[in-house]
């Protein structure tokens, strides 16, 4: 997965629109991540070339914000909420359950490339805490058993 060549032509639209608009670096990086799922090194070099912003500065901005990733993620990106309400309602237990079930830590991807785990800032669905999002879907009022079942169902679905 990581060795796939990056098709830089996909960036043409974004760069034509924003490369010369001042203050657009974060927007460009967000669009780039939407396209590739992460920020590939080749893309960062191209953005640098087209915008005139040094790669070091792009990396500085990219690493500052939690939204940006520099590695490809799995098919299912699990975003586990770390908000206060989730903390009070035992999100730690859910984190442990996911770690045990998938054998990965925060920020890692399973060997089969199916799941990535990321602990994220408050998702704002506090009344459903503890909460996680997997790709676009939100799952609330989690218990260890419910979490295991969700992961199992997704694994089955992708077979």
């Amino acid at each position: 997965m990581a060795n796939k060549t990056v098709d830089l032509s996909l960036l043409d639209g974004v760069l034509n629109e924003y490369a010369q608009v001042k203050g657009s670096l974060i927007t460009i990086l967000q669009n780039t991540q939407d396209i590739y799922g992460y920020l590939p090194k080749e893309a960062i070099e191209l953005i640098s070339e087209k915008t005139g912003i040094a790669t070091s500065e792009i990396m500085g901005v990219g690493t500052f914000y939690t939204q940006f990733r520099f590695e490809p993620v799995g098919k299912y990106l699990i975003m586990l909420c770390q908000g206060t309400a989730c903390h009070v309602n035992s999100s730690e237990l859910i984190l442990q359950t996911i770690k045990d079930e998938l054998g990965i830590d925060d920020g890692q991807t399973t060997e089969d490339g199916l799941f990535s785990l990321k602990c994220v800032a408050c998702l704002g669905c506090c009344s459903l805490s503890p909460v996680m999002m997997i790709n676009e879907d939100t799952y609330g009022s989690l218990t260890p058993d419910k979490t295991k079942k969700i992961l199992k169902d997704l694994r089955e679905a992708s077979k």
Partner: protein
Amino acid sequence: MRIVIGQGSCGIAAGAEKVRKALLNTNLKNAEISITGCIGMCYLEPIVDIYDENNKLTRLVRVSENDAEAIASYVESGDEKLVEKLIVSDEDSEFLSKQTRIALRNCGVINPEKIDEYVNAGGYEALKKSLCDMTPEDVIEVIKTSGLAGRGGAGFPTWFKWNAARSSEGDEKYLICNADEGDPGAFMDRAVIESDPHNLIEGMLIGAYAIGAKHAVVYVRAEYPLAIKRLKNAIKQATEKGIIGENIFGSGFSCDFTIKAGAGAFVCGEETALIESLEGHRGMPRLKPPFPAQSGFWRKPSNINNVETFANVSWIIQNGGEAFAAMGTEGSKGTKVFAVTGKVKRSGLVEIPMGKTLKDVIFGIGGGMKTDKPFKAVQMGGPSGGCIPADLIDTVIDYKALGATGAIMGSGGMVVMDESTCMVGMAKFFLDFTAKESCGKCIHCRIGTKRMLEMLDRITKGEGKEGDIELLEELCYSIKDGALCGLGQTAPNPVLTTIKYFRNEYEAHIKDKKCPAGECSDLIEYKIIADKCKGCTLCARNCPVNAITGTVKNPHVINTEKCIKCGKCYTSCKFGAIVKE
């Protein structure tokens, strides 16, 4: 008949979209199915509101897609028995009836995706009035009379900021909305944007007119995709109607509107860091002065207010500053929105006049604890705020009164805790957050929060030492003194307030190596109560280290030497036979 489904993020997460699809698949003939934003009763989602010909409301709660047929039959026949079990209880209805809604007045009422519904509810009248009948100075005067203060947490008078930006030299000015709602446990702004985006746009345009800005910018968290989508849609509709753009309402005033999505950095809630981020840089705060009113976005005069602040503006213009100032206390006027969550029975959005007490919110509206454990504390203001203990529950909601407890009004996060929450753990939770979110510019904040986190970590592991509390306090004050921005200056608050009110818990961790709340895993032991154990073997099968022994139908025993305190036995036991000590 009209069927309206609550579709804020919470509602959708609880299954509202599935309910809507299921309703569309029924044979309903004489009903229109539409959506609304967040009704605010998050704990009852998904919610379906049914309005009859006379606009009488029947509210159905905790609806699932399997209820669609019954709802359709009810709508056709009018027979309430069909949906009896779904109708909201009188007790739950009080959650809304006890509130006074100004900023949230349209939330859960109108369809946020249709500008006509906003206009029919009196929307954009205040903008017309401001642009056509009032001077910018008049607008600022009304806001001054209202006593509106910044709802993002600091509580700075809104008129003062507007006036400063208005008085600044320069013909290019910016009006910016801070929608980077980063406090964990707070979702007021998200709900306003998702549920009533035009109200935000109207408030911002009035603000832009008041300060003389031709550009309005909203900085929204990227974690709020639905809010961004609905706001984009609203901007498009308002532009098509000529409400955004050139010569609005023929007044000669022009203003454009853009959205920028944040990329996940709590510090960007600080206004100068937000400006840096808007310009495409790392979100690191600037030295003040110059203040944004003099030199802000692209070094031009800029004014930044929070979403909820803007959400009050059009109401104030329509109803007058006096009407707003009539609510509240001497120093805090109007209403405030809170996101009430945690161990409370009824969680959701609560808007009440200032001057009510914490008890009114947590017990009066929130219904008290959802567990059988007693109320312990409420956390207000997120990582910048503090924990207010049970014996101060009669504290009045007022900037000064809350500030006096060591917490802050904050942006509106109110996380309720019961006896099972460890206060040292809570302080550690917030320090972990601020240590990660510190931008790194100031040494005290960057290294100080890390050192504090390490100490708190040690204490929760039973490795605390005599003198730790005093050292923590010393670090707190030096971080407060040594940090440039609000993040660092307030980061120690969660630690200071928990030490102030729950010092005995810190001492129990340090001296007795005990966690009174039973939350710190290193300081507790799991035991099986022989009388309650049925010998089902479930715990033994779940134990990852084979620390539990026993035979079928006989009480089991945990070998504490082997036990790694993962808690799997505790959560798996169906008979409550395992206890934490």
